[in-house]
């Protein structure tokens, strides 16, 4: 089973975030000049941060995370697919750090971030899905925005209680934010950030929030993900990082297993295509637990 426009690469959970309050482990990075964003795969990007800076001692705060999956097809046009998704996530992160967002409006984060990409002198090109989650501690609500086929799961008591819906135009063509070269305007798929699905719901202590690109969900069905999450003993940073890593690793292995009936293969079969095997793809996993706020 092959998927022509993605190259298989794995992302590891990795680098410690600046504010290690609780919960976040995220896909890797070499942090760039002072910025946090994780971006490692050929086409994925992610970020997570606590709104505010070190001087913020307020009890109220928001925690924001996001993943973006670059569309690999741009490679054929000499464009590095990770540039767009990585820059998108880094820009979201900057926005959040500077407080230029409304917690209950995660689509706003996407919209503003996308507009900022257009303000760059560098002529950025490419496209990407995006999934943003905002945890508002005061109201104990999670606000989400999802454009495309990345997504999130909320797991409570070993069961999935919330999940995002995939947005596809047609098979393997997710909704995507894009900046096209002028000669290709109108030909390249370009969805508005407003087209993102947005949901808001209450969360409880102990809820696990998993945000990931389609590389995970296409290769690992829910029960396997839940199995891994059960192994999460406590909410300290190392455990979460370890779990995120093992999920990503497992998905990566399954992706290259030609005999395995992956969710992606199952879906294809349901639609009349007789295939088996995993789907090699970039995998970005972001894992959080809703825990007590500690200083």
């Amino acid at each position: 089973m092959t998927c022509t426009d993605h190259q298989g690469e794995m992302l590891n959970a990795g680098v410690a975030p600046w504010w290690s309050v609780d919960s976040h482990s995220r896909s890797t990075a070499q942090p760039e000049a002072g910025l946090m964003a994780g971006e490692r795969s050929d086409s994925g990007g992610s970020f997570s941060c606590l709104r505010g800076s070190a001087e913020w001692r307020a009890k109220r705060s928001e925690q924001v995370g996001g993943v973006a999956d670059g569309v690999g097809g741009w490679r054929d046009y000499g464009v590095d697919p990770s540039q767009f998704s990585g820059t998108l996530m880094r820009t979201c992160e900057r926005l959040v750090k500077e407080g230029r967002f409304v917690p209950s409006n995660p689509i706003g984060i996407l919209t503003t971030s996308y507009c900022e990409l257009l303000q760059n002198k560098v002529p950025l090109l490419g496209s990407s899905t995006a999934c943003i989650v905002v945890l508002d501690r005061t109201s104990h609500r999670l606000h989400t925005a999802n454009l495309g086929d990345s997504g999130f799961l909320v797991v409570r008591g070993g069961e999935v209680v919330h999940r995002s819906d995939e947005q596809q135009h047609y098979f393997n063509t997710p909704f995507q934010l894009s900046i096209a070269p002028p000669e290709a305007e109108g030909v390249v798929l370009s969805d508005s950030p407003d087209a993102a699905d947005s949901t808001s719901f209450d969360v409880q202590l102990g809820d696990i929030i998993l945000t990931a690109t389609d590389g995970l969900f296409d290769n690992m069905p829910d029960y396997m993900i839940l199995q891994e999450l059960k192994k999460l003993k406590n909410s300290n940073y190392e455990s979460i990082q370890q779990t995120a890593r093992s999920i990503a690793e497992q998905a990566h292995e399954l992706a290259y297993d030609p005999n395995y009936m992956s969710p992606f293969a199952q879906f294809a079969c349901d639609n009349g295509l007789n295939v088996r095997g995993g789907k090699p793809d970039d995998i970005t996993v972001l894992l959080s637990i809703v825990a007590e706020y500690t200083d």
Partner: protein
Amino acid sequence: MMNSHRAIESNIRTSPLNAEVVQYAKEVVDFSSHYGSENSMSYTMWNLAGVPNVFPSSGDFTQTAVFRTYGTWWDQCPSASLPFKRTPPNFQSQDYVELTFEQQVYPTAVHVLETYHPGAVIRILACSANPYSPSPPAEVRWEILWSERPTKVNASQARQFKPCIKQINFPTNLIRLEVNSSLLDYYTELDAVVLHGMKDKPVLSLKTSLIDMNDLEDDDYEENDDCGMDNLNKKLSSTALREGPNNGYFDKLPYELIQLILNHLTLPDLCRLAQTCKLLNQHCYDPLQYIHLNLQPYWAKLNDTSLEFLQARCTLVQWLNLSWTGNRGFISVAGFSRFLKVCGSELVRLELSCSHFLNETCLEIISEMCPHLQELNLSSCDKLPPQAFNHIAKLCGLKRLVLYRTKVEIEDYDVIASMIGAKCKKLRTLDLWRCKNITENGIAELASGCPLLEELDLGWCPTLQSSTGCFAKLARHLPNLQKLFLTANRSVCDTDIEELACNCTRLRQLDILGTRMVSPMSLRKLLESCKDLSLLDVSFCSQIDNRAVLEFNGSFPNVFIKKSFTQ
């Protein structure tokens, strides 16, 4: 002697009671210009607050604070304004930014982290007012911490600028940087400002010889016309001036000659001279000395009282520069209105950039009192409400109008362009930088309606598409074009460059930053055809690599070819 000095010095540093506080800026509260779009995080002044994002990297990054202009390119444009007479030579500031810090301290150092083309900062000032105190301050004082003439810095690399600042006797959390970018090869970019200071007043103030020199300059600055005028009023009322006709050789000189000599004095000197004797008082008060009145250099002191003192002499004023003045309560609407009622009748040019005291009433007064006004600059007057601009319609003689960073309401730039094309047939310069919705229709109207256009800035106008032929149309209709900015218009292509080469041979400045569609070949044609070209910005043009730029530099040594970079 030296030993005891050193001992005292070290006491201050190690004293636990008076610890040094180091802070990054909390907020940017005012500035004169920036490169980026108003609410954006890219290349805007807001980036100067907080911790650095880029430093110590060098390069052209979005996360830095960038002013709108650099070099002398804008002074060489058709739209360049003539300088005011009587500008003191030590006032060279072109732009400013004001930053607040959390805590008030007695400053010991101000560091500026510059990440691209450093060297623009020429003056640092501290304010005694605390912008976060709930009650308005009794007195607002600005003191120069450091000042120097613009000097060329040869590297474009990042640096931490650490000028030696003067000690002041009040705590501050409001710092102002003034910059002059005229010697820079490209836009300067600033990442952060660090304020070092003591919470409590240092017991001893140590002065080195270096600081003494700054003191001298500061005296120059402090004793401006204001002091002169206060004293003068007192002098006049007490008949301290010597009566009598004996003025020595001055009695022999023709009136006009003395006037001519006085023309060379700066305003403060003019006021001081007025106090010497009755004859010179008469000369110095002659309204002919106040035809050009540049009060911008004295923004830190100029207030309602100053305007009152000047009023009587300013009945013939034609050029008035009040840019940067009057903020933080220094000038009131009433004070400005009084002044303008006396002095507005002959006014031809009025500069009011960053004059935040202006409100709608002020614009109404201007439109009523200045019937001959030809030039009005309201740049960065962002507190003016949209309806205030309606009054400008009454100024029928306007030839130059600057509305940069104002809240004037414009829904549809195509409509504006259409009106301009219909009514302003003799228009020579037009700045539509960042006009979000102008399309090829507007451009067509401009092209056909304003054939005399020499300067057109269409930078960062994303809705213009080369495929509509709009740029080609511009080129064909505007043979007098000297400056054309198509910055960050990603659709500019070889055809457009070739049309410019064919039709706009007088072109001097061209900016095509960020397009992937222009090749070295078409640029070569342009360079060969436009012999007067002196500025060509091909930053982030993917087909134009450094090798191509080097080749062009070799073949066309008179052209400054700019190629900015991020890493």
